[in-house]
């Protein structure tokens, strides 16, 4: 019976580590999605000078639909409201600053704004991707070791 409890706790630890890793990967996917979105906005301004509402209606991405960013922007909400669904505080903050600068200037200025945020997003994403394997190892190890220790306490 005790061994069964121990196994259950260890499996729980394994589950938690899986969840944390999945969350980390999702986080990076959101950075990629936001990067794609900014790149699309840049393209639409550069080639067609499309107004924002037209851009928001013509872009679609499952992650940004899921976290509510695109639906909110399409319904005319400010970026402040739209970024509420983004869990990563740093990304939400960056999108908020980007949203505040979007549409406030002429073409060249807007392209520079897009380039600036795009570069920041790519740098951050690359950095996160680089750290990911070691982070996964750490998270798995900590969860497993933690679960084992708790299990051992109950043995």
């Amino acid at each position: 019976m005790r061994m069964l409890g121990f196994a259950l706790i260890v499996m729980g630890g394994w589950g938690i580590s899986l969840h944390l890793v999945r969350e980390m990967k999702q986080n990076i996917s959101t950075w990629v999605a936001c990067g794609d979105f900014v790149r699309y906005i840049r393209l639409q301004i550069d080639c067609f000078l499309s107004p924002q509402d037209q851009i928001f209606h013509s872009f679609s991405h499952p992650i940004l639909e899921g976290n509510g960013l695109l639906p909110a922007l399409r319904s005319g909400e400010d970026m402040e409201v739209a970024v509420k669904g983004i869990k990563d505080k740093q990304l939400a903050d960056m999108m908020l600053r980007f949203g505040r600068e979007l549409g406030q200037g002429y073409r060249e200025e807007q392209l520079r704004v897009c380039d600036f945020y795009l570069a920041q997003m790519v740098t951050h994403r690359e950095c996160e991707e680089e750290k990911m394997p070691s982070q996964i190892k750490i998270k798995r190890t900590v969860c497993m070791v933690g679960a084992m220790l708790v299990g051992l306490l109950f043995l």
Partner: protein
Amino acid sequence: MEWMGYLKGVLPPWFWQMIERDFTKEKQEKMEEIRLRLDRCASLTIGGENVRVSCLCDEKELQGILVRCCRGSLYAYRESIKNGYVPLPYGMRLGVVGQAVVEGQQVTGVGRVSALVFRIPRRVVGAAKDVVAFWRARRGCGILVCATVAGGKTTLLKDFIVQISSGEMGVRCAVVDTRGELCPDTLGELVDVLEGYPRGVGLEIALRTMSPQVIVCDELGHGEIEGVMEICHSGIPLVASLHARDRDDLLKHHLGRQLLDTGAFQGLCFIDRLREGFRTRMEVYRG
């Protein structure tokens, strides 16, 4: 009054609250212009009269209004801002006054915005009654509509378009609507609109690709003389407008004489602005 709903959305809430507090519903509906100035009093034009209102806008507020009028996308309206206006829904127009940003000899934008002017158009049913009667009597001749600034040229042309393209007349009408003021919601049935085209280009496209029975265009300029001549040679009547007070004024006007010399216009329509509405005078031009 859909235009009022739109203005409520782009103007600061306190400004609209002030309008609702100080002006009756009837006066609100008669508004022709709203002028907001940087750190100076705003004014409204109601029934041709200027009414000062005691409210000041700062630079940030004016910029905010401009960006909202540009659907949050200033870059998308650069070309029209360079020309001093932003086309708005419901045939309205926002005049943008400020400091020009000049590169070389060209205006590339407007820097510090110092005033914004909302022009609210009116649909006056029957405004073009005399012009339509004149036009029908002469089996579709070219007509030049003349009036001073804000004299009712666009209002008259809009009604003309609706009247000739709908109902029993049913004339195919091509409209060259450079500033998005002629064609809005009260369109006639057989109207094709070239919106946002520079006038010269629009006139050429209307002539070559749309096989219209009449072409309508607002506020002709020096650049359109060739286009007008070509339309004249094609035999399609052109109904257009120009700034001029009366016949003398028109003939003194270099552009006016040039346009009349093309032979495209056999009728002249002069608009006299009255306290309530306006009156039209039709004259035959024989060259």
